[in-house]
């Protein structure tokens, strides 16, 4: 995968984050390949001082707990959670902001954890699907998924659950259409959307026609 002549077709998300823009993208190879060494990072005026490239101590607040890890600045929030903190409800699927399997909330806003750097998430409240299970009981949203059988393999499910929970937290009166809209950043390969609609209507106390 190191063919210098390889044309650039799709820069990997990581390279995009790594270099600050065009220089890095220009050296990336195919989606299959791992990119070439990126150009030196450019420090824009007025930006916070550069950290790294070595590991540094990063403190994250995950599901109400302060946790620390030694991370290189290039580590995404998703990889920090999964590889360093063993919080694996957020799944790595596309790793570039398409599928929603990595959905978590940062200070109550849904984000794709694969597209946020761990160091950017410091000082913010990070919540994953695991936070929706307390005292031996699931929250109403995951419980509705289970009741409606809105999951098969379940790999996409925590992402959908976090996205749906956030819509309802922001607007407890959300209509089924509004909730559905909040799920448009997530993809399920097993095809559980029909049952997901059942879950949505149940959460809205509405009958599906």
């Amino acid at each position: 995968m190191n063919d210098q002549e390889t044309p650039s077709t799709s820069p990997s998300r990581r390279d995009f984050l790594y270099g600050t823009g065009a220089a890095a993208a220009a050296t990336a190879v195919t989606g299959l390949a791992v990119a070439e060494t990126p150009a030196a990072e450019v420090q824009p005026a007025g930006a916070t001082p550069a950290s790294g490239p070595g590991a540094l101590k990063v403190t994250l607040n995950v599901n109400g707990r302060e946790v620390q890890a030694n991370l290189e600045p290039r580590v995404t929030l998703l990889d920090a959670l999964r590889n360093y903190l063993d919080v694996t409800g957020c799944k790595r699927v596309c790793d570039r902001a398409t599928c929603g399997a990595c959905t978590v909330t940062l200070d109550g806003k849904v984000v794709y954890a694969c597209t946020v750097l761990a160091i950017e998430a410091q000082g913010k409240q990070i919540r994953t699907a695991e936070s929706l299970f307390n005292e031996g009981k699931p929250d109403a949203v995951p419980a509705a998924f289970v009741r409606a059988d809105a999951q098969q393999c379940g790999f996409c499910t925590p992402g959908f659950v976090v996205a749906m929970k956030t819509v309802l937290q922001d607007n407890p009166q959300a209509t089924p259409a509004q909730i559905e809209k909040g799920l448009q950043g997530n993809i399920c390969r097993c095809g559980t959307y029909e049952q997901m609609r059942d879950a949505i209507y149940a959460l809205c106390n509405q009958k599906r026609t």
Partner: protein
Amino acid sequence: MPWPTTRRLIGTKIQRLDGVEKATGRAKYAFDIKRPRMLFAKVIRSPHAHATIKSIDTAAAEKVAGYRALYQIKKAGASVFFAGDEILAIAADTEEHLEDCVRAVRIEYTVQPHAVREDDALRSKTNTTGGPGGNNINAAGDFSTDNFENAFNGLAATHQADYGVGVISHQCLESHGLVAEWDAKQENLTVWASTQAVPNTAEGLRVHFKLKPGQVKCITNYMGGGFGSKFGPDIQGIAAAELARTTRQAVKLMLDRAEEVTVGGIRPSAYGNVKIGATKEGQIRAYEVECHGTGGISRGATVSFAILPYVYGPAIPNIKRRHRVARTNIQIARAMRAPNHPQNSILTELAIDDLAARLNINPMTLRLANLPPNDQAEAQANPRTFVGQRATIYRTEIEIIRKMCGWDRAWHAPGQGGKGVVKTGLGMALHTWGGGGRGPNPTRVTINQNGTVVAQSSSQDLGTAQRTVTAIIVAEILGLQPTDITVNLGDSSFGPSTPSGGSTTCPGTSPAILKAAETARDAFLTSLAGRLNVQRNQLSIAPGVVVNMANNQRIPFRQACGMLNVASIQGNGDWPTQKELQGNAKLREEWTTRLSNQGVGGVQIAEVKVDTETGVVKCSRFWAVQDCGLIINKLACESQVAGGVIMGLNYALYEECIYDRATGRQVNPNMEFYKLAGIADMPSIKVHMHDMPERGVIGIGEPPTIATAAAVGNAIFNATGVRVPIAPYTPERVLAALANRRAGNG
């Protein structure tokens, strides 16, 4: 050993036992496993579709911080046959360091000519895909009924056209891969793998490392999708285990998304020119197809040749078919949910609707007139076989779906889909699938003195709710609730089990689970009878209790367990051996036509809205009627059907692997340009299970995805009066077909 005739749980809607763990992110999939001191590994792959490796230089990579080991898969001088072909694997301490290592590897290639499109492969004068033969073409079938030359003579209507569908990828959300770890003595290997064949995966590694039985253990507690693509350790699994052995550390190797799409499996393409003809009464008398397709470097057929034309074949007297495989420099095809059947469906069902239009007949009527007949001999020998009653099943199902969707009111002649820009249409298609089970699937049910019940088998739960199926059957027999049963699956040390492919798991395991539960129950009651000083036959099980008929006492189950004078009672259940089944017709009848069975039919109808200005097709409503014998869990069964339909709708409208002719690479090995539906893209899907409990358990994974794309294709034709020949029916293709019609060619 029949299924209980009155069923308290079986066939009802029961929630998944592991639903909460999965929905709250606490379920640990192979991708989530973290072992002490675990390393990460990655495969370095060819960027070229066809090349010879000139040199491999890993010196710089080996100096990178965090580098631990490498495993050579191909040596310099070897050939690679597709972009993504494996060359070597590297392990490092963190994923970040691993990327640095991978980036530092230098490989030089001599690039060779390639073919990644079917037409290029068919034209190729050289063999670019390896193996024997001087070109990229395999003859994969040539068949004709006698005197076919005259087959179309005198028929009232014939229609000839091209139909087809491209290559798609499984796109499992959990990618292929595993975590490998050896014990301290480097003798026993444990892997946590994403697999639909737990014992096979352990066995593949055992053979590779030349170990003794039992030295490799594969664990799969949860599994993030397989769809036919995950039956063994694969090269990357072997690489991970090799690297774990070299480094004496656990190694995780899961494919990234681009790898998952480029090497994790494809469904082959199929393109055909079809000629079909019927009498004026609508009797189809002749079907002829000349077709080809590619399954990458695979030599296997890309259609189910023997059953083309699909479904209606037994009703059509004159058939001629020819199939060629165009080998391309793309990954090898893997089985994908109902392998080759959706392609057969497209090459059959679309032609039927076009013929119906020529005959001016309602396509539902044309189908009813050409159903495969009930095989009378079969029906007499055994009334529960599919072939003995297939026409009856289809007729019943068509009648149900006709009412469900209001066909008589809503269907209109092709092209009468409304006056506005957006046209509405209905289309239908039928399908069939085998879906029979077999052994071995040894299952053990343990009743403990403390009142707990544990069921165990090495079979796996792919999201099919196999764990819940197991609990339902055991709970039914023991008078308990499914949540009372602890189910342990997905561990190769529990013994053999059949791979979860071809809709065989539920029919393959259910009878064995039933037998284990009944054996455990009988041993439990026998033991209890001794304790209570009564005859065994005076004890029976009712919901929640053991009934002592000697004194009309009802002993709560848990209390009865406490009376045992042993710590636990076990019951084992499994299929008779193949030899026993072969030699004993009665046994065979019991296990393969009463406890389980094979052969299902299904009918699907799509309603679409076609925007004739933008070419966008939206499936607005969908109906599916499906039989699958005795249903164990109606909730999960309906989920499977709706999920199959959604996979079929993706096939019809969105997904396709696109390969660049110049570079030989896939241009969309991702999820942004490889389109999959989100919730807003999907219609409401009405599922009706046509329950046939007398037939025994039959699988449901494959069938519901087969007819979907053809139903959508026919609905587009019905809406617009224009046939869009090739799926997926993208806006571009729809507009092209509409323009072609306006130009007077369609």
